[in-house]
């Protein structure tokens, strides 16, 4: 936690902002922003004087769009009336539009469940209408519905599904030549890809949106797109490009209220990047003013964090403290854990720099507790995102597979037709041939499906393993650097107060006990951190790390372990090293737990592209046919499969166990020694 922070680290934007845009009222040719009172009055007048139900529906929808920004309850009322009237008049377009509008209003209220069901109904009605009479107006409506369904999917974290909706909307809009709506869809699509950590794709769609709406005059919907693009440039350390984008965004920010605070917030981030502290402070303050006016408290919290860090950086501790504490309170109010965490870290650093250990420790502990509860959800989310990415690829593969099956089917059909012609006279034979063809086809289908399922399972395992390892690495570093250092410091303080002789005689034994408990805690922490991810593996590579591991096992299990390695310099690819280490670790644990061995042998030999691992013991052994593989061996099997290797388990009761893994290394896996290769003597 207290690594010395470089400027970039401190001033890094807290998290990526996401501004999705739902489509509102644009299709009836009305502005979505708050309408002036006169428009509202004339609309209400029109509502009372409308002669047909269709007109009343249109007016009600216009009214709801005009009210949406200020009074969503009243807006919903009007939509409901439009809904009833449309049904009565059998006005399909009005019905679909009403559902769309209800969904949009639900989105504005962050009510995803309602938004989703409204979207589905709108989609159903619009599709039926479109089948009856395919008009461009209905196609546009369907595109808007798809966009809003994408919004819902986004909020639920189903990014692949969201991208699918947006792409569908974009296709329709491109065909219609509706650049206005397309711009919003492109903006959302970019946001989606950014969340999926594909910044290149995100930038591509944002640039498309910019190309559509740059004008002159520029489209007002472009402002959030500009700002996200600016943030992306800043995250990629291209402040000059960010400045270009911000300059284009400026007139839009001044003309409209909606994203003005976000504009100044992004501007402040730009000034932070380029080191213009006073400008950054001014921009932050402007952004704060507008965010307060808009009532955007969550964004306010982010701005306060940025400002607080800036003040801390400039040495204004008192101001920084106030701002950070406000930011903390807001973040906790909105239950935004990543933000709270970032604020707590900033506060810890602030107090520490001011020499106030006690509050620093308190903030640190608070953050640590929060991190504990967060880690599991963070891992889950990370794995989900990985899975989403794989699923997208998976779908493409399935499509390809389906296509291939189709081709195969066609071929089979054609062949069958030829058979039909040739054997028309021999009816019996034809029947037999047909049955055979069918059975064959079914067989082929089943094989294809099995292969697909296997691949899917493999991909999921891979994503899981990778996510786990990254998380473990981070956790181990945190434990060692953060908690370990902290405990050591506490012990220093305690022992020095003991050596100054300020203790009551009665307290001395308790004191000694506390210190010895502290020692045990540090030892336990080291053990846990090493199990999570050994530092030596990352720094020195597989050979030395296996050395350490075998020694630790030898010590813990009181069993001699003999290690033989060959050809481990230059080092293997880091991912492969980690997997191999985990495999050996798991196998050794298995031996210690079950085998009652007198001796263990670990052997890792590498010849260019080929790698051969053996872990062998002379313990109890087991019958692989009846006992099956235990949990430990199954996880080894999964890792071996991930590496694309062949695992062989040889064991008999009373004859010990020998597990071997044969692996072809990908050619890229041979890395030049990253740092001066560990000059460990080859182990022979």
């Amino acid at each position: 936690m207290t690594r010395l922070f470089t400027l970039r680290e401190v001033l890094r934007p807290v998290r990526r902002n996401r501004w999705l845009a739902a489509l509102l009222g644009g299709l009836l040719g009305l502005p979505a922003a708050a309408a002036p009172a006169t428009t509202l009055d004339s609309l209400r007048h029109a509502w009372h004087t409308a002669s047909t139900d269709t007109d009343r529906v249109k007016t009600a929808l216009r009214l709801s769009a005009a009210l949406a920004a200020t009074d969503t309850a009243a807006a919903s009322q009007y939509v409901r009336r439009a809904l009833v009237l449309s049904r009565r008049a059998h006005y399909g377009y009005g019905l679909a539009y009403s559902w769309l509008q209800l969904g949009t209003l639900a989105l504005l209220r962050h009510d995803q469940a309602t938004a989703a069901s409204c979207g589905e109904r709108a989609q159903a009605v619009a599709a039926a209408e479109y089948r009856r009479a395919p008009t461009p107006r209905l196609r546009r409506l369907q595109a808007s519905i798809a966009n809003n369904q994408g919004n819902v999917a986004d909020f639920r974290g189903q990014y692949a599904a969201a991208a699918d909706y947006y792409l569908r909307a974009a296709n329709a809009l491109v065909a219609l030549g509706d650049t206005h709506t397309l711009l919003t869809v492109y903006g959302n699509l970019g946001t989606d890809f950014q969340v999926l950590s594909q910044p290149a794709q995100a930038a591509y769609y944002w640039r498309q949106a910019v190309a559509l709406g740059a004008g002159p005059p520029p489209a007002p919907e472009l402002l959030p797109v500009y700002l996200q693009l600016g943030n992306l440039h800043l995250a990629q350390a291209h402040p000059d490009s960010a400045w270009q984008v911000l300059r284009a965004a400026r007139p839009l920010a001044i003309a409209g209220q909606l994203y003005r605070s976000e504009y100044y917030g992004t501007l402040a981030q730009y000034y932070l990047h380029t080191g213009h502290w006073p400008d950054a402070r001014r921009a932050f303050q402007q952004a704060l003013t507008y965010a307060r006016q808009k009532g955007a408290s969550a964004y306010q919290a982010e701005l306060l964090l940025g400002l607080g860090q800036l003040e801390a950086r400039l040495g204004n501790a008192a101001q920084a403290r106030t701002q950070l504490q406000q930011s903390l309170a807001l973040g906790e109010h909105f239950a935004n854990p990543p933000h709270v965490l970032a604020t707590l870290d900033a506060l810890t650093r602030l107090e520490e720099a001011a020499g106030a250990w006690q509050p620093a420790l308190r903030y640190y502990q608070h953050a640590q507790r929060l991190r504990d509860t967060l880690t599991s959800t963070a891992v889950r989310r990370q794995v989900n995102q990985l899975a989403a990415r794989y699923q997208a690829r998976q779908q493409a593969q399935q499509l390809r597979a389906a296509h291939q099956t189709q081709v195969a089917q066609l071929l089979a059909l054609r062949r069958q037709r030829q058979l039909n012609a040739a054997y028309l006279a021999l009816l019996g034979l034809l029947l037999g041939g047909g049955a055979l063809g069918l059975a064959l086809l079914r067989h082929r289908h089943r094989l294809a499906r099995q292969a697909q399922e296997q691949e899917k399972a493999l991909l999921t395992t891979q994503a899981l393993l990778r996510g786990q390892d990254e998380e473990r690495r981070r956790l181990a570093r945190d434990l060692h650097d953060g908690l370990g250092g902290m405990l050591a410091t506490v012990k220093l303080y305690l022992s020095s107060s003991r050596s100054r002789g300020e203790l009551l005689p009665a307290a001395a034994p308790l004191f000694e006990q506390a210190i010895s408990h502290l020692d045990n805690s540090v030892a336990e922490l080291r053990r846990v951190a090493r199990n999570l991810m050994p530092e030596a593996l990352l720094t020195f590579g597989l050979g030395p790390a296996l050395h350490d591991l075998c020694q630790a096992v030898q010590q813990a299990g009181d069993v001699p372990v003999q290690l033989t390695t060959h050809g481990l310099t230059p080092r293997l690819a880091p991912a492969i090293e980690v997997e191999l280490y985990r495999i050996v670790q798991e196998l050794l644990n298995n031996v210690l737990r079950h085998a009652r061995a007198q001796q263990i042998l670990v052997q890792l030999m590498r010849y260019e592209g080929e790698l051969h691992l053996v872990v062998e013991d002379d313990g109890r052994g087991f019958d692989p046919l009846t006992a099956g593989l235990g949990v430990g061996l199954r996880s080894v099997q999964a890792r071996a499969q991930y590496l694309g290797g062949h695992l062989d388990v040889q064991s008999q009761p009373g004859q010990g166990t020998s597990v071997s893994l044969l692996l072809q290394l990908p050619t890229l896996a041979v890395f030049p020694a990253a740092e001066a290769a560990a000059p460990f003597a080859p182990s022979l």
Partner: protein
Amino acid sequence: MTPIRVVLVDDHRMLLAGLQMLLQPLDFITVVGTATTAAEAYAAVAARQPDVVLLDINLPDQSGVDVCRQLAHKYPRLKILVLTTLQEKSYVTRLMQEGAAGYVLKNASPEELTEAITRVHAGKKYFSDAIQELLLQPEPTAPARPVLTRREREVLGLIASGLTSQEMADKLFVSALTVETHRRNLLTKFGAPNTAVLIRLAAAYGLL
């Protein structure tokens, strides 16, 4: 006697403050500088010319291992005392190779720490008890003769009785490729250039 001049390097400001508080009252040690990064450490040593550096391994900008090497190379008379939470033999041996004079774990008592500083300053080595234990342990690999897996012993026997790889593969129910892997492992382990030498060496070790 002039006090021992010490520079402290650790990325935890809290730990630095604790160490300073601990060492300040001692008249035979004086802390002349602190650093929280490798870059600061180089600057502090260049400016202060200390006798002893207390060095953490996990630094934000560079590994303590590299810092140790560079400092030891540039200032041959400087004593580097590693102060870390990492209790791994590979780190200990590597840092000693890079010129460290001692290795102390961070949960050391104040007495142990001052003793370590005075010892390395006097030109001796110093290791925490737990580290000494680690160093005294038998190496996981110290075989008098090559250690063979069960399969390798089988293959060795079959090679000695003159079977070809394919014959061995059939006998052991494995592929010829796997047999080749075992054969190559055996040659590597015995350091033998060919099968004939392998058989001779194996016989000499009494493995046949």
